């Protein structure tokens, strides 16, 4: 009984990467708070956001790591990538330089995550159509060539933001269902605990007696 608001059967780790000022923190804020943050300070190190979503009737907690985009933080980001189930790679459609850097971000993501990590390309600031510097078609082609999912979003208006986060989760969940993502492999970035005793965390079926005096 009493399924609390934080009872969930999976935790997915997400990371958000991309150049400085592309709007990573704003996307996170829009997704977790459903609000646009107008004056967002530079992210220092890492910020966390969480939200529980539902995919195919399963409650999934997203643990989202929002990284600093500045170059000087890139060296210390290894632990960010470790165990990520999803990576949201963001560029700014009004600044071509942020798009040009994507391949280097993609290299990092590929090298530092496991092969099953779902990488989702986001072209942010789609509300600024007049200042567009990268066409949709061009980015779409890049995504297709590299096997990435892709959407243009606006953290300001909230347009497509929800979809980017949810589509990523759906894809991860689908990988679990068809067996291509092995949950027992270390660093899969996904925790699920239905059957074995060590996996009773956060399932709402039965309370675990193990270790927790309550």
């Amino acid at each position, binding site marked *: 009984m*009493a399924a609390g608001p934080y009872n969930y059967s999976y935790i997915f780790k997400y990371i958000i990467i991309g150049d400085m000022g592309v709007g990573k923190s704003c996307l996170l804020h829009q997704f977790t708070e459903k609000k646009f943050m107008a004056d967002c300070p530079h992210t220092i190190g890492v910020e966390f956001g969480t939200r529980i979503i539902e995919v195919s009737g399963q409650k999934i907690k997203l643990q989202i790591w929002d990284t600093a985009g500045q170059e000087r933080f890139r060296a210390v980001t*290894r632990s*960010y990538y470790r165990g990520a189930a999803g990576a949201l790679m963001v560029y700014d459609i009004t600044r071509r330089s942020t798009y040009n850097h994507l391949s280097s971000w993609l290299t990092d993501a590929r090298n530092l995550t496991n092969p099953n990590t779902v990488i989702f390309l986001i072209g942010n600031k789609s509300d600024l159509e007049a200042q567009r510097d990268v066409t949709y078609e061009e980015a779409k082609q890049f995504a297709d060539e590299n096997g990435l999912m892709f959407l243009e979003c606006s953290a300001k208006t909230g347009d497509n933001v929800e979809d980017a986060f949810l589509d990523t989760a759906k894809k991860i969940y689908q990988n679990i269902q068809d067996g291509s993502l092995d949950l027992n492999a270390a660093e899969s970035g996904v925790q699920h605990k239905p059957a074995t005793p060590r996996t009773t965390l*956060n399932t709402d079926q039965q309370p675990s007696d193990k270790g927790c*005096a309550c």
Partner: protein
Amino acid sequence: MEDESEGSLSPSQDSIQTPAVLPWDRFSNWLHCACVVTFDLELGQAMEIIYPSHIRMTEKEKMNICYLSFPDSNSGCMGDTQFHFRIRQCPGRKQIIKSHVEYNRECPIQLKSDDAHYYGFVFFRQTKDRSIRRGYFQKSVVLISRLPFVALFSQLVSIIAPEYFENGEPSLEAACHDIDQWGPPVPGETMNLPIFGTVLQVRIPTHKDKLVGAGQTRTQSVPTLPAQSILPSLFEVDIYTAFQTILPHVQMLWELMLTGEPLVVMAASPSVTSNTVQSLVSLISPFHYCSDYRPYFTIHDSEFKEYTTKTQAPPSVILGVTNPFFAKTLQHWPHIIRIGEMAGEASVPKGFNKLKKASSLKTLDCKPGVYTQYKPFLMKDKGILKRLIKGMQTKRPVEAQNAILRRHFLELTQSFMIPLERYMASLMPLQRNISPHKGPPSLRQFDVDEFVKTLHQSGPQLTSIVKGEWDGLYRKFFRSPNFEGWLYHRQYEVNQKLQVLHMEALCQANLLDWIQDKEEVEIVDLVLRIREKLKFATNNSVAVKPENINKLEKHMTTIISSLPEDLQSVLNT
């Protein structure tokens, strides 16, 4: 002044703790401002003084205060007239009063500092004065507050206003300085409030007060100051006098209030309307009346159109009006109370018991009474009526009559409330379902049908002799804002409590053991959950024991230090 106030905010986040008191801080614990409204022959009602002078109000707020500070119709309000009103605060630039945050946590819900409305307490004087063109002196002193302390502020304005009319602005300044010496309102304490050399003494109720006989649980502390004036209550009005002419219908009015029906009170004077509307609202105490109510409402009010529109059903509000114009404007309202003068105290007027059809009300000259087609769910308790009529005949003091009536409705409301509370308690999760490794358990949903089923076993019949269709009354109540407000408040309280219990469970758990075989993502999840708990704890410092906070902080440090170094540095930023 602005620099100073900014300075108090910036240095530390937890400025609630810092004791620095700025000029007027103590004043604003009680009042927003004091105003003088005059009648200017060119402009009409006009704001003459706002004190303290740095207080800013929007034009709309000022306009509403001006119109509501004067009688709406040119009736014979000669001499002094006292009443109060309630207006909406304009949104934006909300200033949070530090002491009110704490006060709101401990006070009874219906006495909370209101951040959406202002209450205005008016003392209006109209006298013949040959030195003035048109020959009349017409002026009001108005106290504006967020606190619904009706009895206290009515008393206060009746002390301040005559002084002001006698001696002018310096006395208003002196009064405000006196108020700026008062300590903040603390629920449960008896306060001594000096004003013009006299001391008002009043007890601030707390939500812990026992419901029946509230206000009698005086604290032990003996007042050190000689109190010249002891107020029996901070907020209660004389409901007996308010309802004297419509006594047989008060139980029906209680139903209307409980279920949030639109209601209009018409009378010749704003004193009568404000006292009656306030009495109506207090009839369902300890329930908080959640819809809007206007003890006095005029055709100039900024919500006039919104509230009187005929294109929609009348809103769930109570309006007190004096202008005959409303008899027409509000003709379509389902329930109308017309209060007249009580002819002779001992006599029971003819037709006292009869309800009147709303359609027969065309003008304000109509007979006093209650105009409605509402069919009450409960049968009238004739005992209380007999007792009160007997009291009239034997000239029982008004205070005693008032106490009898108040107690009667308190008991009736409690009889209605107890089954709700009992059912609510059954929705609580069990203690053993509180696990540190799951989310805090939450309350089960309030199920109306399930609740109604419990009524046969443990309904109001256990505590009340009043018979009738209680089920139907509950069902109507469930559709009202009052139920929504009550449920929200109770859920909030229970969830706070559950959060605290859950936090304690987390403190007691052996987390280091638990993380042994866990993946990084899960441990980070745990760290994030502990962080969230600590945030909750700092926001609710009263409810959470400091040793638990320490424990949790220690837990977190140990957990983080057990992680790989690169992750440690990430989590420590």
